[in-house]
């Protein structure tokens, strides 16, 4: 068995009385692509927010790269090598594409605390490179992204993640707002990650896509993980019955 890159033990998150995530044991191996599926409100995004330290978990353990980790915030998670496309786009609408790609990890000509001088040329060039390798086409990277279509903005977000991908990539419904062509493009980016051996957690409602892309499918239901199935030992109906609670029990409510 290959090395485990991410593991959660008993990961739990409560918002006041809402048990959004309960006792989640999750494992991701090196180079593995895993899909997380489940109904709306099943706790998928909540799971992502705990792993990436956007929020602090109520209980449980997270092991990344073999080490127990307690990231103080999303920056630490990212510095540790976790790149994320969040469901609510983490983009600054009034900034251009390079500024968004490099938000929080700018390149500098010289450093002077908060008044460090930005190396705008280098960031622009590396942005164009990143867009090229991910085959994302943006008309003018110097325009604020406010004026771009939802799909284009999504592509900026995904290009950012793919360009900086190192140890783990998490995508929360990356193709939810995309057209047919753009979805195919994102799926190609994901295949590129697979070829590069970058492990991935993909959250998606699109079962066709999930079966196309990943090695394993993890089903969330009412804040709990109810199934973890290898792609070749399951099928769409099977997954749906876990999602809806026909299989997997504990549907006493």
């Amino acid at each position, binding site marked *: 068995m290959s090395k485990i890159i991410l593991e959660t033990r008993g990961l739990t998150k409560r918002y006041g009385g809402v048990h959004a995530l309960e006792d989640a044991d999750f494992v991701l191996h090196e180079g593995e692509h895993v899909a997380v599926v489940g109904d709306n409100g099943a706790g998928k995004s909540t799971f992502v927010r705990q792993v990436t330290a956007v929020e602090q978990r109520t209980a449980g353990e997270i092991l990344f790269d073999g080490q127990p980790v307690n990231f103080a915030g*999303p920056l630490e998670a990212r510095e540790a090598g976790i790149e994320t496309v969040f469901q609510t786009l*983490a983009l*600054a609408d009034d900034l251009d594409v390079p500024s968004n790609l490099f938000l929080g990890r700018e390149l500098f000509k010289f450093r002077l605390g908060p*008044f460090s001088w*930005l190396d705008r040329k280098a960031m622009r060039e590396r942005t164009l490179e990143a867009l090229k390798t991910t085959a994302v*086409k943006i008309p003018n990277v110097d325009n604020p992204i406010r004026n771009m279509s939802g799909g284009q903005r999504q592509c900026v977000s995904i290009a950012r993640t793919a360009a900086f991908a190192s140890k783990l990539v998490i995508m929360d419904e990356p193709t939810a707002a995309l057209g047919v062509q753009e979805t195919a493009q994102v799926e190609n980016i994901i295949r590129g990650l697979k070829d590069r051996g970058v492990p991935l957690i993909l959250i998606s409602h699109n079962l066709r896509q999930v079966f196309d892309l990943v090695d394993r499918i993890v089903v969330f239901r009412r804040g709990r993980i109810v199934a973890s199935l290898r792609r070749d030992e399951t099928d769409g109906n099977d997954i749906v019955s876990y999602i809806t609670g026909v299989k997997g029990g504990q549907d006493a409510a």
Partner: protein
Amino acid sequence: MADATHGLGGLKYDPAKRTRAPEWNVFGALVLIVLIFEILNRLNGGSFLFNTRDNVDAIFNQQRLDIMILQVAIIGIIALGVTQVIIIGGIDLSSGSVVGATAMIVMSFAQTATVNGNPNPKAIFGDWAMDLPVIVPIAVGLACGLFAGLVNGLLVAYTRIPPFIATLGMMVSARGAARWWSNGQPVSFPTESYGSLANGDLLGGMTFGLLSWQGQNPAVVFVILAVLFHLIMTYTLYGKRSYAIGSNEAAARMSGINVDRHKVLVYAIAGMLAAVAAVLLTSKNLTAQAGMGVMYELDAIAMAVIGGVSLAGGRGSIIGTVLGAAIFSVIISGFTSIRLDAYYQEMVKGAIIVGAVVLDQWRQRRRVRG
């Protein structure tokens, strides 16, 4: 890539055609307003831009220009800070009062010990009065502004009360401090070196044709600070963070920006800029009064808003605010030139501010509809 397509959607895209910077619109408005006042003046046989009276040699109307420049400079310096605060999605209502409080305190440290050989009758520190080197009042002033700005910033960042409320509190308190400092009495008679801060000639009396910098040090300082902060907002991490926070605070947080600390920094800088204005203002007038700077915060906000700085945060620029300051002063002096009564002036000023905000809202809605 001459016939580059739009990628997504496959629309045609002409890379040669770029969207015009919004500052050009503001500049256009400035030119238009100047023209309007020129025409209105001409109708009365006078001129807004050109001196048609005593001094035939003068092309520009010297006195009007001088007053205008001073006014723009002092409030403009405040507006530079206010612009940054608005760009991060905040607001600063305290700057006028901070000017008042700082003015009183600064002047007390700038007072000369003897006036015409007699002890300074107005000396705040009584027998302790002495001629301090000019750097002391400047440092004290900056410290006052820094303190007020820090309090604003800490309140906004860490108690999460709306900036409107936090700085409103500071507005009231700082004005109180200004009155309390000398029981409402003005503080006067600064040292000569302090007086020359604003009245001297940084540029050695340099003139551009008939535009003179003589006695216009506040304007020189304003220009220097405007250039400085334009560079900072455009080319440094500070600027990038400011725009990011103003346009999507949650995204800025997720990207690892220490949003709270940055807010404190921005409010602190705004406070210090208000202090710079206070130093120049007291130096220019050679006296400090507790009522100094009343309503300056609104004028400063108006300059920024007229210059295209969006109250929603994330959009606007220092250049825009400088142009806004120019428009603002042209309007004021234009009203005076057509002899519009001061009461009407204020009413119209209010309408212009509201108009600028409406325009901003309208631009945003149009953008959303896309």
